[in-house]
């Protein structure tokens, strides 16, 4: 078993990156995620593994540093919070278009605008539906614990390279800041440059005499060529939908109703579920772990068995659209949310269940 530690979610991301064999981190301070770079700088990862950590001049610079490094096959990561992630959207779109692997962590805070530094889930649409310009998706992982902040970082790198795609970890200010025990996986050595070149023949690593030069770009001025790029991306997204869906169910076997929630909201719904079950309500919990690809089929199956669903989110109703698209209109599906950095209490979630779904 790996090493057991008490850590903040943000620190777990940083430690997991070092242990996963990450080559470089580029970031810019913003609350509530600054601990990621602070932890990395304090850890001197260059001494530990040779990992490079650089404080960039802006999130625009960090994402483009990521683009440059990823284009040479290096394993790289950035983290930020909502306003910074907005600044990165052009770069993320370029990375999706050029098919570059990287992990981008969004420790979401309340918006819009400068908003608040308190936790929120209001960046669901931005993360799941593309965010930047053009038809693209990225894999989106939604950790609900410090343990998952660690595990998803490693999983994120694996998926990023498997599909040559940016992967987003969509966390929030509470998961990033709270301390929990976490079991750290054993360190994986960083790849040597020789291994990197062998494993990533697409990467721009310097042209030897015996191969064609490599061009990393998202540009194809010929519409037919650009359509081919798009078709290739779409085919890749269908593969992700087939192979990479992750979700968790709790007490769904006998459930008449379910909460659907991701990340921190799912943690709150666990408590609400206990409270409601104590009142005799047969309620379960469905927690999507990959927000893209969304667990469409299991949601649809569950929709055939229960009477109603309450989608609990810390936003004005975003994931509920995907839930409705998955389940259809046969049962009652309602949204309950608090916004702007307010975390719903377990009691108000139960009340919403009783008034909006059971009584409603």
């Amino acid at each position: 078993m790996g090493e057991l530690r008490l850590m903040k979610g943000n620190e777990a991301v940083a430690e997991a990156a070092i242990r996963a064999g990450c080559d470089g981190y580029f970031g810019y301070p913003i609350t509530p995620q600054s601990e990621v770079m602070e932890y990395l700088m304090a850890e001197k990862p260059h001494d530990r593994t040779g990992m490079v950590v650089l404080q960039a001049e802006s999130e625009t610079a960090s994402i483009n540093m990521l683009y440059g490094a990823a284009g040479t096959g290096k394993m790289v990561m950035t983290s930020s919070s909502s306003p910074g992630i907005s600044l990165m959207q052009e770069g993320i779109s370029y990375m999706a278009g050029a098919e570059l692997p990287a992990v981008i962590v969004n420790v979401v805070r309340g918006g819009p605008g400068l908003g608040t530094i308190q936790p929120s889930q209001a960046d669901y649409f931005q993360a799941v539906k593309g965010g930047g310009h053009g038809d693209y998706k990225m894999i989106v992982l939604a950790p609900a614990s410090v343990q998952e902040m660690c595990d998803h970082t490693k999983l994120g790198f694996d998926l990023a390279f498997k599909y040559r795609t940016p992967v987003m970890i969509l966390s929030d200010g509470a998961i990033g800041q709270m301390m929990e025990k976490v079991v750290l996986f054993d360190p994986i050595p960083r790849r040597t440059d020789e291994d990197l070149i062998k494993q990533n023949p697409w990467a721009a690593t310097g042209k030897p005499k015996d191969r064609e030069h490599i061009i990393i770009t998202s540009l194809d001025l010929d519409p037919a060529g650009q359509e081919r790029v798009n078709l290739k991306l779409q085919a890749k997204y269908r593969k992700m939908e087939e192979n990479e869906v992750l979700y968790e169910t709790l007490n769904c076997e006998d459930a008449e109703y379910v909460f659907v929630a991701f990340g921190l909201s799912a943690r709150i719904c666990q408590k609400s579920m206990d409270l409601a079950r104590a009142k005799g309500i047969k309620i379960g919990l469905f927690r999507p772990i990959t927000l893209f690809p969304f667990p469409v089929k299991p949601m649809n199956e569950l929709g055939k068995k229960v009477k109603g669903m309450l989608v609990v989110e810390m936003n004005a109703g975003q994931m509920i659209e995907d839930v409705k698209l998955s389940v259809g209109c046969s049962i009652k599906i309602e949204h309950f949310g608090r916004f702007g950095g307010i975390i719903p209490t377990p009691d108000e979630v139960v009340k919403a269940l009783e008034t909006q779904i059971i009584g409603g």
Partner: protein
Amino acid sequence: MEEPFVKTEIRKDENIVYKRTNLLVDRPLSYCPGCGHGVVHRMLMETLQEMDIQDKTIGVSPVGCSVLAYDFMNIDMLGAAHGRAPALATAIKRLWPHKFVFTYQGDGDLAAIGTAETIHACNRGENFTIIFINNGIYGMTGGQMAPTTLPGMRSSTSPYGRDVQTMGHPLKITELIANLPGVYYVTRQAVHTPNHVRKTKKAIRKALEQQKENKGIAFIEVVSNCNSGWKMTPVQSNKWMEENMFPFYPLGDIKVDGKLVEKKETVVKE
């Protein structure tokens, strides 16, 4: 009766005094005839060949007329988003410290949208080379005003001439950059005559050689023409460049071996 024309092959080894480097891909350049971009491409690729570092070089192209530089340069390259080439190059050089890394950027790319990335990469003293093509205009998008457009100069978005009161002054970013401690070598060159071409090539060689020493940024500005954007013939544009661009952007070394070169004040025509 006329003698039939007999074509004799004269391209024999002993006759060849100059040959296109095979580091330039054998395809027609996308640049307008008369444009300086292609000459700089050739100087850069010839230098890489002479140093025998094709396999050790990673280049970054900008958004601008030279966006397709990677189609012409037979080396591994990445196409950056508009203005962000120095950010890409920073990360590449940090993670591949033994490679030769360069960015190739226009004036809109480097001195407007990418000013922050340019200044900060230079100020951090990253060990890569910046080739900066200053043609005083946005060539690619059809001749709009650039940060470097001269006072009074016409462009499609300053059709009555750049009015510095409302449109701001041209930015001498090269002089600005020369003052940063992370910058080791700064020079301003041109490519409109054989003599200037030779000097530019020498500067490129010097910059790349210095990457081995990890002394900081080498920054080469090439003041160039944009005959299409300036709405002139190539010959007119070169004359106009000599008469108007060079007084404002005087050629020569600005910083050598980490030290600013003493310069006599040049008179600027406004």
